């Protein structure tokens, strides 16, 4: 496994010198790529290195760094190696390259990301609404979205549930953890 991984890292570094590798154990490879290089990088991975399968596109809201992160999870059925491709997107201008022509299933993930995080994928097939119908607030998976406030505003509570507490304070008290300030501000 080690040899395969080394060989692959060498190949990837040769093809994409700017891609940053991060070492992991097991069958995991990890690269960070600039967002503009993503389509070329992924199609290279698919066509040349045998990562034929896109498992998922994970997404993270790094609100502190004012960035979104997308992680493309690739799988090579022949070499049994998984490849994590990280990329960062500016939070103020969330536009990402569309890759649904490389993997058709990417379309589903991108629609979800578009709805939940508000990242736009130009030229995507069927950019319709997906899970959230008639959503007119900010995308709900952004960390600056206040769920409880939204619920209070939109739905009703049955009388008798006012005692619902924020459990994090209890937990933090019990385990002695500090709650960061930004977390208090943005998210519960």
């Amino acid at each position: 496994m080690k040899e395969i991984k080394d060989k692959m890292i060498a190949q990837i570094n040769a093809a994409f010198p700017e891609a940053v590798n991060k070492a992991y154990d097991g069958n995991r490879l990890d690269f960070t790529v600039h967002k503009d290089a993503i389509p070329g990088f992924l199609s290279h991975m698919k066509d040349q290195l045998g990562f034929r399968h896109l498992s998922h596109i994970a997404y993270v809201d790094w609100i502190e760094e004012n960035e979104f992160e997308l992680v493309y999870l690739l799988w090579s059925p022949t070499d049994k190696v998984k490849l994590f491709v990280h990329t960062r997107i500016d939070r103020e201008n969330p536009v990402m390259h569309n890759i649904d022509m490389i993997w058709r299933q990417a379309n589903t993930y991108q629609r979800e990301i578009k709805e939940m995080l508000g990242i736009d994928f130009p030229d995507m097939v069927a950019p319709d609404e997906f899970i959230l119908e008639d959503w007119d607030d900010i995308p709900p998976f952004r960390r600056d979205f206040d769920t409880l406030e939204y619920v209070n505003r939109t739905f009703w509570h049955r009388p008798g549930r006012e005692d619902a507490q924020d459990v994090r304070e209890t937990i933090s008290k019990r385990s002695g953890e500090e709650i960061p300030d930004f977390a208090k501000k943005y998210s519960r």
Partner: protein
Amino acid sequence: MYNDKNSKKIVETIQNWARSHSVWVLAYGTGCGAIEIAPTMTSRYDAERLGFRGAATPRQADVMLITGYLTVKTVKRVVRVYEQMQSPKYVVGFGSCTINGGMYYDSYNTINLLDRYLPVDVYINGCMPRPEAVIAGLAKLQQIIREGKANGAEKYLENLEWYKENQRKIAPNWIAKAPDLNW
């Protein structure tokens, strides 16, 4: 004689009796509670002996079972199906999610109070209610039908504006786009 109050009342009584003993269920599997319907209807608990029977489409059904939490996306479908059913029609809410939101009370996309959107005749508490509880709830429904108190459909019609407003609150565009189902 036909318009006579007493004879009307007699007819009404017989009709309610028939309605209560022939309840066709539209088991709309909105949430996890749908798993409890299978044992309820089949050999173990056998709701058919009480006159309950599955109906394939809303046109034929009398009662709609809301089996668990409703997301905003689902509630639109539920309302549409409810409006396609033919009066007299009843709604049974399963589990705490339909009562007060249950464990999803603070989720941004599940509703908390079902009766703001649809008239609910019987609630069955529990998370999830066991088939015994379901049978008990259905028996209660039979009872109120027999007593003529299961008038959810009329309530819905009378307070249509209120219901519609609540529905529009969570799905502003959809209600506007829907064809003329509302009556």
